[in-house]
């Protein structure tokens, strides 16, 4: 009996184990949004290849690292609370640890550097945040340029200049973002002189803002000073990609301003999709509530590659959203958690080859996300489509649809490609599936034209017959009704 029980127990346990492991294989919480902005399970786009801790690079762990930059040869990590910049090669082999710079022949140490950028001019730009300076150093750690906050007109005197992120364009113009400065991005010329503010976030004039302004007029100046000022919100990150455009992120700003792509004039050239129905432009489209409060995405970093595909880090839900150059969502990866491939506090993203590096300030590690076959297919198809190889791109998209039959951009792109090729009816069907009313409308117009051209032979006579028939019918019914009016039969038949 005992033996029987034992065997049964072992068998049951094995069964349990089996079912659990089956579950673990099929559980895949990666998702995407369909044409009606509802989420659905989607194939995994990026899988965590490895996790790099500070101990793997140097002898000590990272402490609250805040920024990451990948140049052609090196990876730079701003190890903020250790007051140092770690430089590694592309395989995370240590090259050097920069913990001081040489200024006028004297060593000068960092104090919580939060930003790092390697310029095309061969200089390393470091936001020495708590010291209130941005330094550009050469290979020998000599300070070539120094950017300070002397000429700033901040909102009040108590706010200090604490530069947190920096980016440099090909003309060596330096763009600095500081969390306390709402006037915009600070712009420095190649000599390190402050030039002015660039592209401030706007305050949208709403009825609420107007009402508050009216209300404020009643109070005295002293009271007004104490009230909350209606100021634009500062940027929290900046990135200059290989295509030369400036990408910025900001939190809690107007819808559509969370991510901007600025041209030289400071205009936002990103267009959010035309199918946008809800008041969400980037990030999670389905809203959720936590303890009665609306949780919305807030972005902390952005990376863009040479094709214009950009990835933005959402610190609220620890997810990374990837978009194409038309702001169509391509994939979502990451997520909150402790296990591999999950993040606790992502602060920076960079691209290394085809993989993405995400810096986690809470777990003090870098997660390397490598692309799956699925997303590689998507990128190939996108590239073909964007270079104008429409018929080839259709085949690629069909491959993608085999893996993910709800993929909106695939339908949309196939539809547009078919439209280019002149297959209007098929294009309409695809564009409807991809929810693209603008191109659907174009396809409809073409299809309409074609239809009339081929069917005019019988449509014209039919129309004439219908109209004449209608006129006669109306006349006949009218006569009949009037004749009835004279009759006595009130109740009809």
């Amino acid at each position, binding site marked *: 009996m005992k033996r029987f029980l034992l065997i049964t127990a072992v068998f049951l346990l094995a069964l349990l184990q089996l079912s659990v492991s089956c579950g673990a294989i099929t559980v895949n919480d990666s998702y995407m949004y369909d*044409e009606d902005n509802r989420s659905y399970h989607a194939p995994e786009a990026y899988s965590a290849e490895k996790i790099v801790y500070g101990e793997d690079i140097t002898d000590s762990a990272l402490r609250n690292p805040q920024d990451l930059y990948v140049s052609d040869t090196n990876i730079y990590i701003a190890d903020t609370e250790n007051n140092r910049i770690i430089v590694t090669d592309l395989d995370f082999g240590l090259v050097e640890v920069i913990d001081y710079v040489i200024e006028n022949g004297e060593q000068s140490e960092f104090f919580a550097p939060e930003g790092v950028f390697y310029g095309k001019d061969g200089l390393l730009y470091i936001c020495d945040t708590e010291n209130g300076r941005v330094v550009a150093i050469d290979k020998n750690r000599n300070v070539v340029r120094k950017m300070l906050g002397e000429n700033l007109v901040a909102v009040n005197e108590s706010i200090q200049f604490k530069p947190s992120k920096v980016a440099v364009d090909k003309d060596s113009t330096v763009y600095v973002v500081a969390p306390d400065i709402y006037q915009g991005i600070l712009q420095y010329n190649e000599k390190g002189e402050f030039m002015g503010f660039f592209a401030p976030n706007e305050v949208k004039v709403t009825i609420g803002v107007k009402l508050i302004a009216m209300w404020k007029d009643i109070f005295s100046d002293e009271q007004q000073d104490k009230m909350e000022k209606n100021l634009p919100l500062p940027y929290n990150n900046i990135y200059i990609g290989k295509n030369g455009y400036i990408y910025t992120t900001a939190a809690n700003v107007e819808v559509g301003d969370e991510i901007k792509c600025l041209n030289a004039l400071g205009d936002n050239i990103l267009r959010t999709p035309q199918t946008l129905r809800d008041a969400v432009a980037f990030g999670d489209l389905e809203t959720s509530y936590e303890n009665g409060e609306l949780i919305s995405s807030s972005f902390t970093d952005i990376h863009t590659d040479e094709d214009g595909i950009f990835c933005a880090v959402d610190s609220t839900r620890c997810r990374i959203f990837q978009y194409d150059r038309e702001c169509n969502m391509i994939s979502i990866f990451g997520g909150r958690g402790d296990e591999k491939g999950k993040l606790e506090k992502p602060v920076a993203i960079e691209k290394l080859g085809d993989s993405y590096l995400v810096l986690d300030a809470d777990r003090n590690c870098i997660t390397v996300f490598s692309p799956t076959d699925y997303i590689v297919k998507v990128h190939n198809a996108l590239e073909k489509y964007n270079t104008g190889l429409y018929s080839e791109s259709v085949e690629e998209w069909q491959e993608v649809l085999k893996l993910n039959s709800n993929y909106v951009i695939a339908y949309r792109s196939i539809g547009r490609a078919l439209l280019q090729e002149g297959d209007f009816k098929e294009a309409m069907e695809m564009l409807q599936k991809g929810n693209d009313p603008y191109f*659907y*409308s174009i396809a409809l117009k073409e299809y*309409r034209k074609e239809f009339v051209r081929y069917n005019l032979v019988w449509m014209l006579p039919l129309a004439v017959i219908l109209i004449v028939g209608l006129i006669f019918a109306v006349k006949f019914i009218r006569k009949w009704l009037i004749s009835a009016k004279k*009759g006595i039969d009130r109740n*009809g038949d």
Partner: protein
Amino acid sequence: MGDYMEYLKKIFKFFIYKCSQIKSGEAKLSISKDSVYTLFRLITHPLDAFNDIKYEGKASLALANIMVALFLFERLIGEACTAYLFGAPEAERMGFWMILATTAGLVLIWSICNWAVSTLFDGEGAFKEIWIMTAYSLLPYLFLYPISVALSYVASSDEAVMLSVLSVIAVGWTLILAFLGMIVCQQFTVSKTVILAVVTALAIFALLFLGLLFFSISQQIVSFIRNLSMEIFL
């Protein structure tokens, strides 16, 4: 969508059942040719037609009911069949009950409130008259709405303005007819009719609010009694 088609089928079956009843003589459909004529006279001579309805009795309740049923039917079909460019996405379409409430329900609650308010205002309208006139006023909408649904299949988004103009005409015409109907029915001046319309709208809100209140309170009472009985007996 599933239950939607179910309801449509049920309505259609009911329609066929009624038709067979009329054919076999079990039910009587008392629509005089006169009342049909009056209905179409609304297009050209609305005031005369409403006068005919009120004083000559040239209207039929059955025809009015059919108009309301048509209203419901057309909205049900239109909601599901409007072309992709102009229709709501499938996830955001109204369900059957919502459409019922905004068509037949709206006409009913309007008639009830209008009658109730007009009684306070010393109006001359009987409930039956108000119901018939409101239902008859739907005529332009019933004609133009199917046209706009059909046109949505051939219109591109450039022609969206034309469709919206069409729907504005349909709704506007119906409202004007309903307004004229009220004037004739109650024998009010124009300004008094405007006030009547506004108060009727307020009354609808009040009625809805009371209904909601009653509903939620009765629900609470029911759940309270259930909980109590469960505590006692179980």
